[in-house]
């Protein structure tokens, strides 16, 4: 019999409905896996008592025939989502000990649909990072190891990607059936690609940001991470929906995304943006991209060449807008209302602010707050921030023009497979890892990563599908076509 932790969410739902196993057994198996994999440091807080109680409630609902769509499904929640009564830190020391008095809309919707919360997942501090090395609670370690030329596994520890690195590691290591992630410039898609799972960032406004610790409000979107496209679709349907408490929430109907999955792409035009074919692109990734196009063609799609001429400016635009919004959002951490407070002896209020923020924020967060403060400061605002917002308009217009000749775009998710800790010590080198994911974020478009193959040293590689606003259904469908054709069965 397949281990309970190996099942997909769809498989768990079927098994629970048939009473092949109970929600209590399913949760117990995941709690045991969580304990056994503590070396990965995927969780900041484990909540076994909450999980056990929620599993019992799911069993009661199942017995009465009143089970909600996610009854008994064990999930991890990224530590960026406020969870009522459970510490929420955003991976930062400045929020150590913060116990939200309310539940974020998205995690609340999952729990209302019967999901079981295993714990709070580790992440880059305030979601700023692409490797999980910036967490104040220690780095998350990928369950994957590279193969050396002799075919043996190397001992080198690899990054799980970031910022949703705990989510990625937990799902890949079969500790959680699925997890919430958040994506500001690629924080769902890049870690999903690095650990060989799927993840989707929906259209900006699909998922409420209420109760999600803010990084860059015009970019932040929640989304699911899971081992199959179908599982992502199941979770996404639960997570989306209008919320009056988020002024940018979209008041549009939420389809049953899983019910719309066919893998049939007849009539769909898939664009290949030529600007994504970078000089010196990794040969395996370039081949996998071509292979992905063949797979989509076989599923009925036609392939067209498109141009997104402002692509090369996406990263510099992002590294003005995201830090600018972060410097404003993170001004709230001042030692007054919640979190850490450091008061130097004899210090006044201003001294308390600067000492608290000096002690509470890590190096990358400070760096970004300072960049944001600089680009918003008097005399520089127009040259940096306004110019960036203008170029952002041009980037969004590039996509709008592309949609005249295609319905979806296919690109690699990341320029490389997972790297080792310390490999990208230079901040700029780290930023460049988001080169393929940032443009869709700037344009608010739905985008997902699906595992498609392995690097020569045996590490997962993902392909990214980008869709039109609110067309998650087509993105997921193309994802399913790739998933079926790739037959990705490798596991850590």
């Amino acid at each position, binding site marked *: 019999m397949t281990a309970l932790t190996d099942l997909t969410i769809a498989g768990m739902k079927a098994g629970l409905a048939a009473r092949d196993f109970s929600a209590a057994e399913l949760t117990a198996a995941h709690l045991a896996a969580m304990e056994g994999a503590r070396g990965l440091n995927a969780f900041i807080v484990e909540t076994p008592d909450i999980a056990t109680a929620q599993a019992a409630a799911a069993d009661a609902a199942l017995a009465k025939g009143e089970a909600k769509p996610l009854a008994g499904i064990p999930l991890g929640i990224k530590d960026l989502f406020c969870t009522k009564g459970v510490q929420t830190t955003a991976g930062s020391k400045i929020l150590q000990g913060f116990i939200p008095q309310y539940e974020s809309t998205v995690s609340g919707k999952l729990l209302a649909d019967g999901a079981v919360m295993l714990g709070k997942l580790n992440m880059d501090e305030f979601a700023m990072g692409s490797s999980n090395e910036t967490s104040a609670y220690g780095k998350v370690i990928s369950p994957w190891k590279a193969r050396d030329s002799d075919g043996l596994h190397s001992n080198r520890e690899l990054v799980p990607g970031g910022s949703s690195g705990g989510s990625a590691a937990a799902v890949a290591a079969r500790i959680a059936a699925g997890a919430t992630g958040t994506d500001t410039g690629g924080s769902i898609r890049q870690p999903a690609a690095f650990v060989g799972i799927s993840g989707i960032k929906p259209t900006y406004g699909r998922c409420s940001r209420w109760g999600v610790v803010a990084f860059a409000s015009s970019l932040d979107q929640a989304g699911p991470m899971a081992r199959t496209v179908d599982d992502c679709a199941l979770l996404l349907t639960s997570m989306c929906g209008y919320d009056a408490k988020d002024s940018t929430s979209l008041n549009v109907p939420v389809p049953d995304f899983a019910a719309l999955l066919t893998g049939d792409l007849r009539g769909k035009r898939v664009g290949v943006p030529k600007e994504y074919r970078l000089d010196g692109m990794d040969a395996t990734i370039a081949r996998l991209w071509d292979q992905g196009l063949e797979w989509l063609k076989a599923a009925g799609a036609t392939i067209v060449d498109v141009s997104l001429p402002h692509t090369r400016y996406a990263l*510099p635009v992002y*590294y003005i807008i995201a830090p600018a919004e972060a410097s404003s959002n993170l001004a709230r951490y*001042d030692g007054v209302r919640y979190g850490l407070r450091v008061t130097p002896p004899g210090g006044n209020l201003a001294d308390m602010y600067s000492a608290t*923020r000096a002690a509470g924020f890590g190096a990358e967060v400070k760096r970004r707050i300072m960049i944001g403060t600089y680009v918003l400061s008097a005399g520089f605002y127009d040259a940096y921030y306004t110019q960036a917002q203008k170029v952002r308009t041009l980037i969004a217009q590039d996509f709008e023009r592309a949609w005249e000749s295609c319905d979806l775009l296919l690109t690699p998710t990341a320029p490389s497979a997972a790297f080792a800790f310390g490999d990208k010590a230079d901040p700029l080198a780290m930023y460049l890892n988001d080169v393929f994911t940032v443009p869709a974020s700037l344009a608010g478009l739905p985008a997902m990563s699906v595992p498609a193959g392995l690097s020569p040293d045996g590490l997962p590689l993902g392909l990214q599908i980008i869709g039109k606003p609110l067309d998650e259904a087509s993105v997921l469908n193309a994802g399913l076509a790739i998933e079926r054709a790739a037959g990705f069965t490798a596991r850590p």
Partner: protein
Amino acid sequence: MSVNDDTVRKIARLARIGIVETQVPALAGELSTILGWIEQLGEVDTTGVAPMTAVIPNHLAWRADVVNDGDIQAKVLANAPDATSGFFAVPKVIE
């Protein structure tokens, strides 16, 4: 754009992040590198282009002007590092 030591001190003060003198030169170097890379945006012709305001067109929703939340003083203060008599307490501001 090269950021000098004085600018680093000024930004840190504006951001209310305490830094020690020994960190200043390294921060100046890092910020100069990042801002230098960002400068390439200057070469894009944005004449007549409107700055992005909303990435997905959306109407800000109105709601009735009524009190719909409140009476949660204990919850608001629950995470305060120092709460006194129903208030957030801070070090003395006026001498």
